[in-house]
Every structure is written in C-alpha cells, then in structure tokens.
C-alpha cells in the first residue's frame, strides 16, 4: 500500500468514527459546541499520532505478553501531558471537557491502531496512519459539533448565526438529538460509500 493511501484511508473509507465505529463516547458528549469538539479532536489526533510513533519505535523491545499494559501506560502518559498542558494554558476548556479528557486513555481507536499498525510497521507508516486516523476523527468531531451547535444553539464558535428571531432546536444540544444525529450521519456515509463503490465497479467494467 502506498504511503499516501495509508494516510488518506483514515479520512473517509476507514473513518475511525463513522465507519469503524470506535470510541463513540466523545463524539456525543463533548460536541455541544464547536470549540469543545475541535479541542477533543485535536487532543485525540495528537495522542494517536505520538502513541503510534512511540509504540513503533519500541515495538521490538516489548515482550509480546505484556504489550497491552505497555501500550496503555504509553497512552496514559501522553494524555496526562495533554491534560497538564490544557490545565495550564486553557483552564476553561479543561473544565468543559472534564472527565472525557481522562477517558482519552481508554479510547478503543488509539489502542486498536497501536495493536494493528504501530506494533507491526515502521515509524513512517505508523506516523502517517496516526495522522490520517486522527484527521478523520477530528473531521468527524468537527462536523457533528457544527451541526449540533448551529441548530441546538443557533451559533457557530459562539457567534450568533441566525439572528435573535431563531428558536434553537434544543433537542440537538441534548443527548437524544446527539444519538439520532449520529445514527443518520452514519447511514448517510454508508450510502455514499456504497454508491462510490458501485461507480468504481461500473468504471472497471467499461
């Protein structure tokens, strides 16, 4: 597989959020505003990339039997660094993300990439895979939070978009709206992927 492909597959075809359906919690919990969603996305992006690099560097020295605890300790260390950084430079964001920032440690997607990619490949491939997956995740968080903030609150990045006469659809900001929105988004992406495949098949026949 070409390196470009390694990078791009995480963005749509294997989007960690909508297609692989891993680490679903954050996309629902912190996406009530774009700033929160984006911060979470960038955090995961950073953690997944650096963890992939670290794991691929030390992959030959880890005993196979204890590899999972080693990965988790790596991830937890990186997450703690991010936590301390946010606490120092963006205390409001740190408060808004709250317990979900701790939970980055147990996001299945990060562990899954460490196990399936970084423990078998070199640094370059692991780095690009982390970048791609992180980007796909960040895009997913961004899209969900844009829809939720726009309709649930009538704002984008805290700036009012529709004027004072707009009645916010409160359900989008509440948990039920989040579940339903993501359900429909997943269905939409599934349809789109399918129609693209159909087109590709037709193209190869002709």
């Amino acid at each position: 597989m070409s390196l470009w492909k390694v990078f791009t597959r995480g963005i749509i075809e294997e989007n960690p959020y909508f297609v692989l359906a891993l680490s679903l919690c954050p996309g629902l919990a912190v996406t009530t505003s774009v700033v929160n969603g984006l911060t979470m996305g960038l955090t995961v992006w950073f953690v997944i990339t650096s963890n992939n690099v670290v794991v691929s560097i030390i992959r030959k020295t880890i005993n196979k039997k204890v590899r999972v605890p080693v990965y988790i300790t790596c991830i937890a260390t990186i997450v703690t660094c991010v936590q301390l950084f946010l606490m120092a430079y963006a205390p409001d964001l740190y408060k808004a993300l709250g317990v979900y920032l701790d939970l980055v440690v147990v996001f299945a997607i990060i562990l899954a990439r460490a196990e399936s990619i970084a423990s078998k490949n070199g640094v370059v491939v692991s780095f690009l895979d982390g970048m791609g997956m992180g980007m796909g995740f960040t895009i997913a968080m961004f899209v969900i939070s844009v829809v939720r903030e726009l309709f649930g609150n009538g704002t984008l990045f805290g700036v009012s978009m529709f004027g004072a006469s707009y009645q916010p659809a409160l359900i989008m900001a509440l948990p039920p709206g989040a579940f339903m929105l993501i359900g429909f988004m997943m269905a939409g992406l599934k349809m789109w992927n399918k129609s693209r495949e159909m087109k590709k098949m037709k193209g190869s026949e002709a």
Partner: protein
Amino acid sequence: MGAYFTLFIGAVLINNFVLTKFLGLCIFFGVSKNLNASIGMGFAVTSVITLSTILAWLLYNFILVPFGLTFLRTITFVVLIASFVQLLEIVIKKMSPTLYNMWGIYLMLIATNCIVLSVPVLSVTNNYNFIQNIVFAVGSGLGFALALILMASAREKLDYADVPEALKGTPIAFIVAGMLSLAFLGFSGML
C-alpha cells in the same frame, strides 16, 4: 440516608451513564444484540465498577493525595483497573469455571472501558466520602445494566422490523438509543 438515596437514584436514572453521559457506548452497542449476553454483561460491569471504584478511592485518598501525586491519577487508575480485572479473571477461573464460562469473555472487554474508568474519576473529582463512593458506583453500574437490558430487548424486536437498507446495523441502534435517552430525560425533573 436521604442524601444517599438521592445519589443512588441520580446515578441510576437521572444521570444514566450510557444515555445521558454517553459512557460505555462500545459495550452498549456491541453486546446489546443479544438479551442473555446483555444480562451477563450488565452484571459483570456492575461488580467490576463497584470493586474497582472502591480500590481506586482507597488508592487516591491514602496514597496519591498524601504524597501530592494527584496528577498521576489517570495512569494509576488505568493500571489499577486493568490489573484488577486480570486478577479477577484468574480468580474466577480457578474458583468457579461455570461463572467463568458465563462471564469470562466480558471481563477482558471491560478492562479498558470508559465507564469503568470514569466512575472512579468522577467519584474522586466530586470528593465523595467512602459510603457515597460505594453508593455512586453501584448506582452507576445498575444504571448501565438497566440501559443495556432495555436496549437489548428493543433490538431483538428490531430484527423482525423492516429497516431501510442504509440504516441497518449500527445507525438504527443509535436512533433507538436516542429514543431511549429521550425517555430517560423525563426523569430529570424527578428530584
């Protein structure tokens, strides 16, 4: 006493971990295809949460706080829970093979799960005392089990329903979860 009851009801219904805090969704969507598996899983999660929250509380208040190491919270909790679950698996395997056959597969899934990590973290950030801590943990676990069992019952019916092609599988499960969550929202005015 009343305060503990409020905390318990709050953890089970009002702040239901799955449906209003979105924690433990991977298990929630993964296991809820089958009712029997959901009951087993709900049970396993409740006991693991309770025991690991007690351990984490002791560790936090008697080791991390006195030595000023609270910034190591995340690392220590994760390692504690993972090793505790591993230990539990070994013990159950030796003590009761029947129980192991019923639960064994779930235990590993639980080891690195958001809900099991988040209950201890929330408990120490809210400065609960020891009893509150236990009540909160049991309530959260039961709330998770309740949501999981409700969801599994709904999904078993869903198998016979005529769902549009694109919505099959995870998407429709999300929409059903949304409706369940809407129902749980009704509890929010209770206390």
